[in-house]
């Protein structure tokens, strides 16, 4: 059965398997890719079977991890094959190689739709499967009604309908508007009566997605779900083939219970009673058995039942039953069950008042923190974090700190973040808090963000009782040999402020303090140096009576840094030096820092913000929002606008990521250090303050509207007509030249004539890239418009001015390109007849007040529609002779050719897709080339070229071109001539060109002057 007779593919796979090393494999793959590529180029001779084989090879190579950047078109084109085997391959390979954002998929929409609405059941299945797997928004918009029809009509067989259900689910995910809530609710309820379990399972997945967004519209489905659950779990009324290890479709049971979790409650008492009966049965009737699959399946159902019980907030008795079960699970040997026990305990914390019962398992959970499996350790950490409160904070945090020294690298970050948050939230006393954070910095300094040590400074400054203690602790850490830079920062700051409080202790004289800190200076970054300088200034100020030696030492340092290249350091050094010479004034100015205003912890706030950001609507989270939980002890007051409580599960945001906020707060600390110089600090630099400032604004006007109104100011570009209008209004020339292109536009264009992808245009704001794929007389050029800035580009317009021989269609270009984003705009090209006129892209955008407008030639040139084709002497000569003279065969002596060796000229011709046929011409100074030209009017047409060079004078040659079409012959001759003569030399003055003046300058042969594209192209 091996590959149903595709021998070539089997051989290829064997070859790959026999490769001794990666290098050999690469060679073999490259060879195959080359082979496939040439076969695809010569598409005419390709039978469907061969095409299929090559497409499979491509997929295999792709799976091996190689880049396959061609042939997508061939895979997509197989979709429209009439026979099942090819179609099947087309669908499956397309859905593996492409993703929903790929432009080639659009080409297939029509074929796919025809298959869906057609009468062939097997084709319907293929189409539904592909759309279900990779369909995007566009598919959603054009196919949803057809897919719905298939799902609800009973005249289609289950195999089609179950696929339709999931296909619709995908389309709904891509665009929720495709399912009309009101109309669909009844149908959804009907679907739940379905007897075929395949259709029912698929429909249940669809229902889960629907109710997660609109539970109130699908009330009628609720009792039906309960019925299904009864049928499965209680009555076991189900065909044999749908039981899995003796369990009636565990998947359907799980899905049904998942759907039920999206309804806020079950009101009808009868339904509620039946549901609880079933749940009770599941909770009590699930035993651990030997067979691992049966075990997994039954526990999958059990855990879902637990989640549903938690959600329904059942009677206390049932709840404690659940906790007891979970308590059993976290102690079992089976790692999966232990993992899930911990995970579900954490979830349980969020919804019900079971904290006290869970605390009984604390010891067991701490054991899991030392489990060999990192997955389990993570769950244990989450749970410990969630169950922590004032009563057990000390134990848990100390446990975490202890674990931190041995924890693997992957967990340290999360661990330290959680320890820091817990220490702050539940600190029984502040000295303990300082201890914890210093230990944390000591053990995992890399993961302690600035927010954390800022917070320590804040607490210490605001609490006088804490100051001597903190200073003493800082002094202790400074004695350690190699301390983390964060430790240097925090201890230097604290010693500077409060070091004098230690004066009478041993080793704490100003001199000793200074030297122990100064030891660290050579090893710290420029970011820390300013903090140390402040510390020196403060130590200097506190040294009473003054100590001449210390004074000289410190002055020497200030002197040295007075010429530092870092402006912050330099300024501090200069100011402190000047201040320190003023004696008494120094004491006033460098007095202790004022107390900080009370504010919410940046750390905790950030943790909360992360939660608000996550848009996922999990059942449990929804639940958590509906009901305030008393399981959570949150000491900070929450923002007034109903932010959901902290979710311990998802806390993954890393503090160091938001460097912005960090910087702000740093600025603030720094400016406050100097705060006595200017008494008021008007800059609300702190992220918290900003947050507070922005908070109330949200009530006055939802941010959404603001954005919208902003956008509506920009003239909308809907279609082409609109764009032209807008372009007419734009005052071209106004400040146009302020943006200079990067690189030479003409050279970029010429390079793109010879290759299919590259950069077409670039300036400081935007980069326009091109990727093209050509197939006979058609092509798809994708424009990649990339905004290089951190602010959006607006009023973006792209207008194509096509010459008359092209049919061109540019997909919608968005009016605005978001910051740092890249948009792709496919441009379809159809070549109608031979012509060497060039299409022009008239592109403009607005950046700030500058309107930038450029006109760019598009590399859709004549040679893109050529396919090199080798010709033998037997074929060549009769053809050559049969075309005897003008207008089919033209000869010209060309002068002013760029001199180049013959081999180079042959390369140039080859890169223009004119295939040089060696040894056809007996004269070694001559070149003969052949190619196939494609356009709609000429179809495929063979072209022959002969070039006779003069070895004595390389600047001239005689060229003969022949083909079966007079225009083609002329155009091709002129095209080759241009290429030979005008190899990129003179760089033209870059920069936007003003729109074409009404009087066209007489340019090269009188192409259609009425054709704006041709006119512009001539000017460029």
């Amino acid at each position, binding site marked *: 059965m*091996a*590959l*149903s007779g595709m021998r070539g593919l*089997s051989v290829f*796979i064997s070859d790959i*398997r026999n490769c001794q090393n990666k290098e050999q494999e690469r060679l073999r793959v490259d060879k195959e890719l080359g082979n496939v590529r040439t076969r695809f180029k010569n598409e005419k001779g390709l039978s469907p079977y061969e095409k299929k084989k090559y497409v499979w090879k491509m*997929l*295999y190579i792709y*799976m*091996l*991890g190689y880049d396959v950047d061609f042939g997508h078109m061939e895979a997509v084109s197989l979709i429209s094959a009439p026979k*099942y*085997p090819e179609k*099947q391959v087309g669908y*499956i390979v397309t859905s*593996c190689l492409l*993703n929903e*954002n790929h432009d080639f998929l659009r080409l297939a929409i029509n074929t796919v739709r025809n298959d869906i609405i057609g009468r062939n059941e*097997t084709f319907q299945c293929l189409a539904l*499967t592909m759309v*279900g*797997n990779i369909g*995007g928004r566009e598919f959603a918009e054009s196919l949803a009604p057809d897919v719905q029809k298939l799902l609800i009509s009973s005249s289609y067989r289950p*195999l089609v309908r*179950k*696929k339709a259900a*999931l*296909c619709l*689910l*995908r389309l709904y995910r891509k665009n929720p508007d495709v399912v009309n809530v009101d109309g669909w609710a009844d149908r959804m309820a009907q679907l739940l009566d379905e007897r075929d*379990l*395949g259709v029912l*399972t*698929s429909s249940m*997945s669809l229902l889960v997605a629907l109710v997660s967004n609109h539970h109130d519209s699908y009330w009628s489905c609720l009792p039906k779900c309960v019925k299904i659950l009864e049928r499965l779990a209680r009555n076991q009324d189900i*065909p044999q083939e*749908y039981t*899995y290890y003796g369990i009636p479709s*565990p*998947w*359907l049971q*799980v899905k049904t219970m*998942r759907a039920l979790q999206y309804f806020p409650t079950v009101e009808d008492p009868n339904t509620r009673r039946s549901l609880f009966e079933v749940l009770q049965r599941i909770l009590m009737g699930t035993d651990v058995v030997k067979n691992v699959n049966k075990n*997994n*399946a039954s*526990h*999958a159902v059990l*855990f*879902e039942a637990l989640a549903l019980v938690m959600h329904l907030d059942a009677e206390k008795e049932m709840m404690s039953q659940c906790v007891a079960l979970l308590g059993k699970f976290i102690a079992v040997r089976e*790692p*999966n069950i232990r*993992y*899930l026990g911990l995970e579900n305990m954490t979830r349980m914390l969020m919804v019900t008042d079971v904290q006290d019962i869970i605390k009984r398992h604390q010891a067991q959970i701490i054991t899991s923190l030392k489990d*060999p499996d990192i*997955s*389990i350790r993570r769950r244990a950490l989450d749970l410990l974090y969630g169950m922590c409160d004032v009563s057990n904070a000390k134990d848990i945090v100390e446990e975490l700190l202890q674990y931190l020294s041995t924890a693997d690298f992957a967990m340290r970050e999360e661990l330290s973040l959680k320890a820091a948050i817990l220490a702050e939230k539940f600190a029984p006393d502040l000295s303990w808090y300082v201890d914890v954070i210093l230990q944390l910095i000591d053990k995992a300094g890399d993961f302690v963000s600035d927010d954390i040590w800022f917070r320590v400074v804040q607490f210490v400054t605001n609490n006088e009782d804490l100051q001597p203690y903190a200073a003493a602790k800082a002094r202790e850490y400074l004695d350690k040999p190699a301390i983390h830079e964060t430790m240097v920062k925090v201890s230097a700051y604290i010693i500077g402020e409060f070091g004098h409080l230690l004066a009478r202790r041993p080793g704490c004289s100003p001199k000793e303090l200074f030297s122990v800190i100064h030891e660290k200076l050579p090893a710290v970054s420029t970011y820390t140096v300013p903090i140390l300088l402040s510390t020196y200034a403060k130590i200097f100020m506190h040294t009473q009576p003054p100590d001449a030696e210390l004074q000289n030492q410190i002055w020497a340092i200030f002197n040295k840094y007075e010429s530092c290249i870092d402006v912050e350091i330099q300024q501090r050094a200069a100011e402190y030096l000047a201040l320190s010479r003023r004696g008494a004034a120094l004491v006033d100015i460098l007095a202790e820092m004022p107390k900080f205003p009370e504010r919410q912890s940046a750390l905790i706030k950030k943790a909360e913000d992360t939660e608000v950001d996550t848009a*996922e609507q*999990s059942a*449990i989270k929804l639940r958590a929002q509906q009901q305030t939980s008393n399981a959570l002890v949150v000491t900070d007051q929450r923002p007034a606008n109903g932010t959901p409580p902290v979710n311990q599960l*998802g806390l993954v945001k890393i503090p160091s990521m938001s460097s912005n906020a960090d910087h702000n707060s740093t600025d603030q600390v720094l400016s406050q250090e100097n705060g006595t110089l200017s008494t008021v600090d008007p800059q609300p630099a702190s992220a918290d303050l900003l947050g507070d400032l922005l908070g109330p604004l949200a009530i006055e006007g939802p941010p959404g509207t603001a954005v919208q109104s902003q956008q509506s100011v920009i003239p909308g570009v809907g279609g082409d007509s609109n764009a032209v209008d807008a372009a007419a209004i734009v005052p071209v020339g106004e400040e146009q030249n302020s943006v200079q292109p990067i690189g030479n536009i003409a050279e970029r264009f010429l390079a793109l004539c010879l290759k299919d992808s590259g950069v077409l245009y670039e300036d400081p704001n935007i980069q326009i890239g091109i990727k093209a794929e050509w197939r006979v007389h058609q092509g798809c050029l994708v424009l990649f418009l990339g905004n290089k800035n951190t602010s959006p580009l607006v009023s973006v317009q792209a207008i194509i001015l096509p010459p008359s021989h092209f049919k061109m269609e540019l997909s919608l270009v968005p009016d605005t390109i978001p910051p740092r984003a890249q948009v792709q705009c496919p441009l379809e090209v159809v070549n109608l007849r031979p012509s060497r006129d060039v299409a022009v892209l008239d592109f403009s955008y607005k950046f700030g007040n500058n309107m930038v407008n450029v006109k760019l030639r598009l590399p859709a040139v004549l040679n893109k529609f050529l396919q090199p084709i080798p010709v033998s002497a037997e074929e060549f000569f009769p053809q050559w002779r049969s075309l005897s003279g003008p207008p089919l065969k033209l000869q010209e002596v060309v002068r002013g050719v760029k001199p180049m060796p013959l081999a180079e000229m042959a390369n140039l011709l080859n890169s223009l897709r004119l295939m040089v046929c060696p040894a056809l011409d007996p004269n070694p100074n001559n070149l003969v080339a052949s190619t196939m030209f494609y356009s709609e009017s000429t179809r495929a047409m063979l072209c022959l070229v002969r070039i006779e060079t003069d070895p004595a004078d390389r600047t001239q040659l005689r060229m003969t071109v022949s083909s079966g079409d007079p225009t083609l012959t002329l155009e091709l001759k002129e095209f080759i001539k241009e290429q030979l003569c005008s190899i990129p030399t003179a760089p033209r003055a870059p920069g936007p060109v003003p729109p074409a003046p009404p009087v066209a300058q007489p340019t090269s042969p009188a192409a259609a002057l009425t054709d704006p594209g041709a006119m512009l192209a001539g000017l460029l």
Partner: protein
Amino acid sequence: MIQFVLLISRQGKVRLTKWYSPYTQKERTKVLRELSGVILARGPKLCNFVDWRGYKVVYKRYASLYFCMCIDQEDNELEVLEMIHHYVEILDRYFGSVCELDLIFNFHKAYYILDEILIAGELQESSKKTVARLIAAQDSLVETAKEQASSISNIIAQATK
């Protein structure tokens, strides 16, 4: 929802990838590299779940092959673990005690079969019998087409075209 399905051999060779969420080529390569590193390094007797970038990966090793499915945080892990087993059982039944070599030389079959089990990252069919029947029907369609293509009249038609 299942984000993607991967089959990776013990040597880190990829035997099947199926993406239900739009990942670009670059991201796909990155995911494969990262995950094969994480999963192949895990010892035996650990649990079948791994946290990964806000998702969970459920995996199971069968002989030399790791079957992995990446799911959302709140999805039911055991359910997915058994989906993997369900898939393996169907492969096993189709090939008659399946081995890695079967899946290498018949990788396309592995794709066909997966498509009968999952669509849109959700379970489509839980009956092994039904899946086997549908795959057999597909096979026979391909066979019939092949026979037609190789029938004499067709050869003549091809030759005279």
